[in-house]
């Protein structure tokens, strides 16, 4: 009797331990994002609450922007429909926790990829979607063409930011003097520059183009081509769901490769008839590159048809087709003066 009881207890304990282990595994390792997304019928995408060019809703709740389009691309790859998506606006503090607790499938919210972020939240940044970095806006009357010509300038900067630290480092490293004008709020930084209190305003390049639009005379200031810090913006997913991570990563790489191959939303039908091997592999008329990431053959063709290639998405949202008008710069393809580079699909 006792023996049976003891045996039952052991079995029970083992069973409980197994459940606990499974629960812990469930807690830490989520490998079902694609399945859940397909069952749900939409991608849950965490975005910025409102950042012109990157993610912003209009008065009818339609979202547009570079980060928004990336999520639409993932929805297009999975559902052949970029509208099968729900955008969840998140502030900077909650964004990683919301992803960790599975409230969203992807975070596409102008988030800088750094080692501490990747490791401390058990997250993964699959690939860089936008190379941002700190730059300088100067008044044209200064006639500066390079950041190295800013010796002696009065520089407006937001207080207590890495931007402020980078500024000091850059001038010191290059043996230049400057007068720092610090403000707690970015609004005040812009006002001070606009009123002539300083010759130079420093912030991340993508931000500088947005701030320039707020000046009284935007046409009289230039953003220098120099980038002095690394702010690689990337989509974010949870660690240990390799299948989902692969989809997110290769969706971005497909868009970059499409631009390099000259495949656009306008010529995708022509591309589907192409006999060039690298075009055929991308659009799915050769090989089984969709299948290996759990998607149909034409996954990448769907992305390009519904959303466009990397260059189209860039120009429409933040480039020449937008109010911001940010030159491609670092985000130009590696073969055309920039550093945007995707491994090949083969």
């Amino acid at each position: 009797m006792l023996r049976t009881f003891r045996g039952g207890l052991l079995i029970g304990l083992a069973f409980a331990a197994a459940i606990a282990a499974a629960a812990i595994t469930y807690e830490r390792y989520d490998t079902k994002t694609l399945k859940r997304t397909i069952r749900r019928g939409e991608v849950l995408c965490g975005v910025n609450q409102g950042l012109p060019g990157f993610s912003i809703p209009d008065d009818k709740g339609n979202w547009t922007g570079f980060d928004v389009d990336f999520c639409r691309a993932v929805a297009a790859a999975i559902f052949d429909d970029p509208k099968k998506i729900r955008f969840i606006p998140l502030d900077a503090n909650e964004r990683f926790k919301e992803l960790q607790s599975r409230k969203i499938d992807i975070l596409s919210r102008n988030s800088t990829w750094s080692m501490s972020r990747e490791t401390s939240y058990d997250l993964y940044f699959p690939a860089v979607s936008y190379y941002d970095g700190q730059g300088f806006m100067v008044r044209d009357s200064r006639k500066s063409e390079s950041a190295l010509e800013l010796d002696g300038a009065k520089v407006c900067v937001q207080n207590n930011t890495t931007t402020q630290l980078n500024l000091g480092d850059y001038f010191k490293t290059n043996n230049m003097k400057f007068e720092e004008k610090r403000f707690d709020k970015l609004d005040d930084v812009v006002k001070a520059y606009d009123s002539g209190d300083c010759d130079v305003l420093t912030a991340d390049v993508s931000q500088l183009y947005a701030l320039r639009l707020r000046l009284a005379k935007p046409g009289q200031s230039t953003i220098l081509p120099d980038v002095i810090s690394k702010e690689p913006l990337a989509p974010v997913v949870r660690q240990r769901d390799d299948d989902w991570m692969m989809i997110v990563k290769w969706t971005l790489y497909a868009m970059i490769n499409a631009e390099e191959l000259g495949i656009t939303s306008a010529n995708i039908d022509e591309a589907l008839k192409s006999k060039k091997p690298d075009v055929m592999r991308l659009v799915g008329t050769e090989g089984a590159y969709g299948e290996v990431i759990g998607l149909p053959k034409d996954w990448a063709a769907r992305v390009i048809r519904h959303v466009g290639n990397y260059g189209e998405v860039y120009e429409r949202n933040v480039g020449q087709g937008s109010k911001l008008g940010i030159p491609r710069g670092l985000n130009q393809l590696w073969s055309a003066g920039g550093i945007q580079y995707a491994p090949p699909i083969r």
Partner: protein
Amino acid sequence: MRSASTTAWLYRFCQFAIAAGLMLSASPGFAQQPDVGDQPGLVADDSYELDPQFKKQVVLYRTTEPPGTIIISSAERHLYLIQGNGRALRYGIGVGRDGFQWQGLLNISKKAEWPDWTPPPEMIQRQPYLPRFMAGGPGNPLGARALYLGATVYRIHGTNRPDTIGTAVSSGCFRLVNADVADLYERVPVGTKVIVRQKPGL
């Protein structure tokens, strides 16, 4: 005198390329269309405001090509003069229509100020209203300067139609607004390396 006639003779080739290209062009109705980019006699509007992306500006540009090299990106409608240290001086350009686009490496073989223009017979036939010869000057479609590309019929030249910058209307030549082509002319010597890049075909 000799120099001027050589200029005219060379330009004839450039225009001949248009006609030849049109004959080979896939769309048969194309040859009926006038060359929107050519409007002889029209004096360039110097106050024309270019779209910001086509204004001359310094941009970030990484390349292994040495400073002083010209890189033309047809698809982007930009001409880059490499400055070194990861930057380039970028100008807006007008490029060849579809079917007149080519890619490769050349050198600037000759430079000319206010080049003359002699439209070839094929072009006269297509556009009978064109002059038989036009001396260089403000109303000339070749504009203020021409940079000759190797032994080819192609040129980097000015224009009397600044509104065609950013478009694809030429015969394969590259056009800049007159102020920009004059600026570029001063910066590059004969012998300058010119790399032309096209969007890849499908």
